[in-house]
């Protein structure tokens, strides 16, 4: 019962905020709604016992990437765009296509759902002060290569950003 309340509350927050992200007129408002949605995701991760991930989500997404977004919104003035149309011309077709994709996804989930419908797994998966260790072990042993590649990715991001910010490309 409590489980249902938690899930549906979070799901409602996430869906509502996500909708607001794409409906808001002003980019700063969009960013605000996205922040709320991201916090909802973080809460959901905690529910799914991915505590480390929840912390990472808040630290990187809310405290990092969204700050970056807001910076950029401030750098490119948003004032001029508020009076223009929000949607592209093909928006009706786009919505139809997207809804088609959604229908397909949900159909797949419902039809194939029996594979996933299991009894709720017990909370014994990851006991106290374990999650970080368990994730870490996987990260630094089995997934060593992706981990090192991540640093290359960050390196590229760092250099790319500096190069892009110069005047002439």
């Amino acid at each position, binding site marked *: 019962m409590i*489980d*249902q309340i938690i*899930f549906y509350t979070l*799901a409602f927050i996430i*869906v509502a905020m*996500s909708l607001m*992200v*794409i409906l808001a007129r002003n980019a700063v408002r*969009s*960013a605000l709604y*996205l922040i709320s*949605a*991201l916090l909802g*995701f973080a809460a959901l991760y905690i529910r*799914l*016992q*991915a505590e*480390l*991930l929840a912390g*990472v989500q808040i630290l*990187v997404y809310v405290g*990092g*990437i969204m700050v*970056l*977004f807001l910076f*950029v919104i401030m*750098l*490119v003035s948003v004032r001029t*765009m508020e009076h*223009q149309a929000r*949607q*592209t011309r*093909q928006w009706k077709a*786009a919505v139809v296509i*997207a*809804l088609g994709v*959604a229908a397909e*996804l*949900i159909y797949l*989930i*419902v039809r194939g*759902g029996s594979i*996933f*419908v299991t009894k*709720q*797994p017990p909370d014994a*998966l990851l006991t106290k002060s374990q*999650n970080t260790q368990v*994730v870490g072990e*996987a990260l630094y042993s*089995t*997934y060593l290569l992706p981990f090192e590649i*991540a640093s290359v*990715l960050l390196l590229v*991001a760092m250099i*790319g*950003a500096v190069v*892009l*910010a110069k005047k002439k*490309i």
Partner: protein
Amino acid sequence: MITTNHYLVLAAIVFTIGVIGVLTRRNILIIFMSIELILNSVNINLVAFSYLLKNVVGQVFAIFVITVAAAEAAIGLGIIIALFRNKETIQADEIDLLKW
């Protein structure tokens, strides 16, 4: 009872919202935010399966997804800034030339 299916459906809804945002909005910044939504919906799936299968690999990959999202945001926003300085616009449909 909340099953994995619930999470999958939620992820599918968020994914769709993200796709609609990407396809319909003109403001590149909001398109970017929609992409973040899509990435997050993927993360939900990863974490839900990690919970279902009692295997943390899903969470490890979610961390990588976040890393990718950070790199993507950094570069993508860099491109937006470069674009804005050259074209004075951040409307997606006004940026329709391959070269200027």
